């Protein structure tokens, strides 16, 4: 079983090896291999400059690539040592960065009449990259299809996303592309303003990547049409978790206080989304979940609520036939949003927009802050992932 803490121990020893002055105890320096894990996230430094960075489990910097603007999602290539970094919605750039050294290889821009909507995913064979985009003239969501030839990325095709405002896209284990069509329409002339709150119609779409056609769609009940489906995570056993945001912003009186479910689950043989309420009311999270992630075993699900500086943990092991699972601990962590799997079961790596990254295990309530001051100094952006 992979053990995060064993590798953390090795990393501590490696840092000792790197600084090299403790020359005596050869045994301490002996088993210091490992250290291949690389954690990735966009961040702002203390001067507000935008970067894409890689670091190890101690929080020590591996690289920091300057970017033209704030980045958002990261797509890791399944076999080549590269990743794609996508501009924050409604952005105009997409960068290809080599791993693990962090060399900037290529920057592409949005096609005319399109804006990047924050996320992307590589196809399982690594030959294509799919980006969520907005076709703002026609007010519809599209998926940009890009060919990766091992060196360069180029645009080859475009599909309908199956709705408006697509945000996170991920690959399902059965090789379909999952699209969170958030349902929110924006236009570059009005920035991030939501233009269709009354007529929003979010959905979760499955796209067959052989044909580019939507093969399946799941909706929310019409009474909840303002619940934007924005972020996705699929567990090792194929359970899809959708993290929701109640759209409307502070302008609408009920948007931050109405009690609505913010988690939707879809099990492999289910034919509808199962809605789950968070364990706390909207005064704690303002009906806004920023990121969602399964642990490596698919037993624990983590959700972050940056507007309330809260993180929630859901144990999805079936308790009985009627329950989807049960809520475990909730924690306060300043401005938290980025979240990714830890290398141990039931454990997560969680970042803070005000600086710092921790490992947290909801089972036993264990915290382990990453000690290196590199991760303390940066303001970590919304999403984090690991190789």
């Amino acid at each position, binding site marked *: 079983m992979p053990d995060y803490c064993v590798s*953390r121990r090795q990393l501590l020893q490696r840092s000792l090896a790197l600084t090299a002055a403790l020359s005596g105890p050869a045994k301490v320096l002996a088993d210091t291999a490992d250290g291949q894990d690389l954690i990735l996230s966009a961040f702002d430094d203390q001067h507000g400059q935008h970067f894409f960075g890689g670091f190890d489990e101690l929080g020590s910097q591996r690289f920091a690539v300057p970017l033209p603007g704030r980045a958002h999602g990261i797509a890791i290539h399944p076999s080549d040592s590269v990743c794609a970094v996508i501009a924050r919605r409604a952005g105009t750039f997409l960068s290809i960065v080599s791993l693990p050294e962090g060399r900037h290889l290529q920057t592409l821009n949005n096609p005319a009449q399109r804006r990047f909507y924050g996320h992307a995913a590589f196809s399982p064979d690594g030959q294509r990259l799919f980006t969520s985009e907005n076709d703002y003239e026609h007010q519809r969501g599209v998926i940009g299809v890009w060919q990766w030839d091992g060196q360069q990325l180029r645009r080859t095709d475009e599909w309908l996303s199956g709705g408006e405002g697509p945000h996170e896209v991920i690959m399902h284990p059965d090789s379909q592309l999952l699209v969170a069509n958030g349902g929110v329409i924006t236009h570059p002339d009005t920035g991030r303003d939501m233009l269709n709150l009354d007529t929003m119609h979010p959905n979760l779409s499955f796209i067959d990547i052989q044909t580019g056609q939507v093969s399946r769609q799941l909706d929310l009940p019409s009474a909840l049409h303002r619940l934007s489906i924005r972020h996705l995570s699929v567990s090792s056993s194929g359970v899809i978790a959708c993290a929701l945001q109640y759209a409307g912003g502070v302008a609408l009186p009920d948007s931050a206080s109405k009690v609505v479910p913010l988690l939707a689950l879809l099990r492999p043989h289910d034919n509808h989304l199962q809605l789950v309420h968070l364990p706390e009311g909207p005064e704690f999270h303002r009906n806004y979940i920023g990121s969602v992630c399964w642990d490596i075993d698919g037993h624990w699900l983590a959700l972050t609520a*940056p507007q309330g500086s809260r993180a929630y943990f859901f144990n999805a092991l079936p308790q009985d036939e009627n329950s989807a699972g049960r809520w475990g601990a909730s924690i306060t962590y300043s401005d938290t949003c980025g979240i990714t799997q830890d290398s141990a079961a039931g454990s997560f790596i969680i970042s803070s927009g005000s*600086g710092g990254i921790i490992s947290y295990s909801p089972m036993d309530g264990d915290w382990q802050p990453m000690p290196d001051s590199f991760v303390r100094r940066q303001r970590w952006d919304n999403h984090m992932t690991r190789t």
Partner: protein
Amino acid sequence: MTSLLSALHSGQTPTLKRPRHALTGLCLLALANITWAAPAPELERQLAMDIGHKLIQPAYQRLAEITDHLSHDTEAYCQMAGSSLEAVQRSYRDSLNAWMRVQAINWGPAEKYNRNPSMYFWPDKKNISSRQLNTLINNADPAVLDPAAFSQASIAVSGLSAIERLLFDAPPPQPNSYRCQLLSAISANTARISQLLAAEWPAYMQQWQADSDPLKGIRLLLKSMDEIAQIISQQKLAMPMGSELSKARISRAESYRSASSLANIRANWAFITSLLQGNSDQPGLLKLISRENDELAETLRGLIFTTDHLLKAMDFTLEHAISDPEQRGKLMMLQANIDTMQSLLSADVSGTLGITLGFNSRDGD
């Protein structure tokens, strides 16, 4: 806020699970962009620098002096030159207490070379410190004891958390042993880091003077206060207490070997309150807060008063209290008060002072 205030007036200890100030705070924050951009921000710069000079500098100075004592006591003990194990342990507890007064500051000089986690490495989930110390002791390499080499050691074996293991874990260090020499070397390293912190702090303060952002100092202070409140509640209290009595674990307390975990919390709390209240010749952040929002300042004063009272009445160690039903209840009250403080700092105080601590909470996606 109403329920908190009424609890204060009725003389009860406020033990709100978690106040619902987030909305208030965010509304204030929305206003803050309009209202608080204008008034003389140089006042904030000056207050932060005064706090740095008159409240934080002496704390660093004290840390440097006390760790210097520890280093000398340790050396004397190991060389059988007049100290005792008990005296060294006392010296250790004083040093730990002095560090906990400034532990929350993880920027500035404390950020360089990872000095902050080097001074006290915790949590240490898999007991890395002990393992690395045991390896060092088994190898008994004299080269490791060289101060220059030690300045570069793994953070897990370079500060007070390592000293605590050597001083309180069995077997106790015998004078003239390698274990004692290692203890002595780590004590010297701790004193060295502490002296650098005290020495570099004034020059660091000058950077606040020159910084284009007049709120930089206040922001860093508030961030540290908010963070240490989170850490007290969720790590220092919740981890050893566990979710129920049967899940209490002494070994998950921060300084269980020296039974100092509650003293650490007191010192961390004193950091928060001293920055808010100041002392007889230096006002704290409450001066600014009451200028903008007197009700909030009153709430903070009341919370400090009741929490200090609660802490004063705790005549037990955390290590014992976590497994005692009655004392455990008091720890839970303490935790609720700390949570209230954290929530007030992160939402209401930051909103009132026009300070944003991160950026995800503002604009997500």
